[in-house]
């Protein structure tokens, strides 16, 4: 058995060539990435808007509750005022303080002074006892 040395093929013979690497470029933002980004922003926007609306709804509900509470308190206070002003409460207190209705002696009449016992209308002179008393009109006696 004979031996021979192993032959190493040349580069050309192997069909190989040197390939120079291309210069590295900045990564390009593809439409897909843009789409995803927009989607994310929209998603966050929707979540934020929804949260804000919900917060607004809660605030509104809280405001409604406050309005109802204030209305209730207002009605109770109006009732209390009405009870405090009621004549049934005020009159006894006024009486305790010595208050009374003004009489005619405490009432000043500026323009008109009349005698309460005298007829104020001349037609009265023709009636019944006054007619008889003054004898200006002859009484008509029933037959």
């Amino acid at each position: 058995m004979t031996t021979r040395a192993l032959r190493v093929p040349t580069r050309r013979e192997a069909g190989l060539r040197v390939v120079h690497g291309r210069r590295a470029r900045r990564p390009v933002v593809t439409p897909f990435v843009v789409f995803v980004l927009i989607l994310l922003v929209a998603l966050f926007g929707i979540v934020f808007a929804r949260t804000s609306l919900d917060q607004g709804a809660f605030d509104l509900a809280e405001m409604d509750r406050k309005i109802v509470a204030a209305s209730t308190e207002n009605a109770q206070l109006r009732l209390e005022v009405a009870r405090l002003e009621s004549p049934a409460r005020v009159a006894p207190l006024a009486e305790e303080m010595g208050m009374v209705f003004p009489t005619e002696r405490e009432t000043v009449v500026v323009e008109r002074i009349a005698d309460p016992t005298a007829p104020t209308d001349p037609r009265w002179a023709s009636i019944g006892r006054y007619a008889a008393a003054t004898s200006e009109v002859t009484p008509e006696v029933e037959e």
Partner: protein
Amino acid sequence: MAARPAARRVSAAELRIWLLGFILVASWFGLGYRLFHVQVVQAEEFQASGLNQRLETRTLAPNRGTIFDRNGDPVAMTVEAESIWVVPQLLEDVVYTAQSIASITGRDWEVAYQAIQRGLESGTRFVYVARQVEPVTAQAVMDLGLPGVAIIPEAKRVYPSGDVSAHVVGMVDIDGNGIEGLEIAYDEALTGTPGQMVFEEDPAGNVIPQATREVVPAVPGMDLLTTLDLSLQFTAHEACAEAVERTGAKGCWIVALHAETGEVLAMAGNPPFDPETRSGPDGAPFSNFAVRGMYEPGSTQKLITFAAAFDTGAITPSLVIGAVADRYETTAGACESATDEIYGCFSDFADHATVDMTVADIFTESSNVGTIKIQERIRAGAMLEYMNAFGYGVPTGIDYTGEARGIVNNDPGCTSCLASTAIGYNVAVTPLQIAAAYAAIANDGLWVQPRLVTSTVDMDGEVFTADPVTRQVVSQNTAWVMRQLLANVVESGTGKLASVPGYRVGGKTGTANKLDPNGGYTDETVASFVGMAPIDDPKVVIAVVIDDPAAEYRTGGSAAAPAFADVMEAALHALGVVPDAFDG
């Protein structure tokens, strides 16, 4: 001949696989079909079903309108209260729970206990134990932490002046529906229109924000502006209480009218009535005799008799009626029969000699015999015509339920009826009717329909009013003459106790024996006084009716006139009426 290939035998294992495969495929088809059915065919139905589970509809109760007096002071209003309720099945100790709640609310614990027991027996899971308590009280109950106890808000009708105006304003039931007085007469206007709120809620009962929410707001009831003057109403209320106490009477009723407008300034009665507990003394029911009760007016009726006589020309102011005795027969022998007036024997209140009397003196001294003689001068049928014109026998039409018509006896076969009617028997009126009749005299002969409410006001502030009915019943001259005769009664006749310092007052006393249910008359009386002031230009007409005063106060002059004076004085001050005169 070629041999047939041997048939391939299917093993049991393959069969099972095929069967399983078939079942799986069939199942998928089944599921697919179901999915399609649910998602497409029944989609709307399931959507609606799901929505229904989340949707809650709540009725929004409208606020009942407020009732005001003529000065804008509330006499009936609605406030928020809390009602305490329990789930009977959740209570650990029924007696302890009922007593604990009652100790705070101040109500009878046995009532609550019995309500809970009934709930346990019927299996209901909602039982009221204390309705319409103050919110503070309800919170104190909740602070006890009793299991099975809860509260819900509920509207409550309250009357700030208590029982002062109860007979007019009336009351509502526990659910806020009007059942008496103005509360029922104007129930529709006061109630308003319920609203509705539709919303979605989660299983825990929380409202889901941004979900379906529809609100149809409730329309509040209209407010009533009444003609009452609360201060004067209080005075009348107190005057009645004082009169009942002083005279030992069974009851007292006072009606005060504005002479020109027919507005009821006050309408009070005794025994009193509490509109919040819905009961009178000893559980007595609601009543308003001023509108619904009838009585024989006695001598106050003479105003109608004299007005008819003057207006028809049957008498003149200068006429003297001759030979007025203290007894008079319309049926021969009636006075000898030892029976009473209904058989034709009439007598004056006190014995006196037979004398000639002027028309004015007959009225001033309230002579029954003289009045019957005057009635006999009136043409046939005129008396009834005038009573009808003055509003007898028909309701006045006041805005109040259950008004009595009164009674006018028009029996042509009755020989003594017109004589009885002339002096206030054989006829029945309500206190309001007689007050309205006197108001016609005060108002120069113009009868004005009484009213309790001047206007209703809706939530936008729009005011609705109605003009009262009016009619001329006697001439101005007749009315003027009658006012002078009424003044005479107070100045020198039977109504001296009705005088008011500073004002010229006119009025008429009335004392009528009460009918015996078994026939005839009893010794009990209805004492009354109806009058007006100031007599030259009357602003106020007041009727006071005292039911069955003690014997020493049996007349209108002693029982009713003092109460009239108290209320009239307050009314004239309230309306700012200038005194007629003062003596310096």
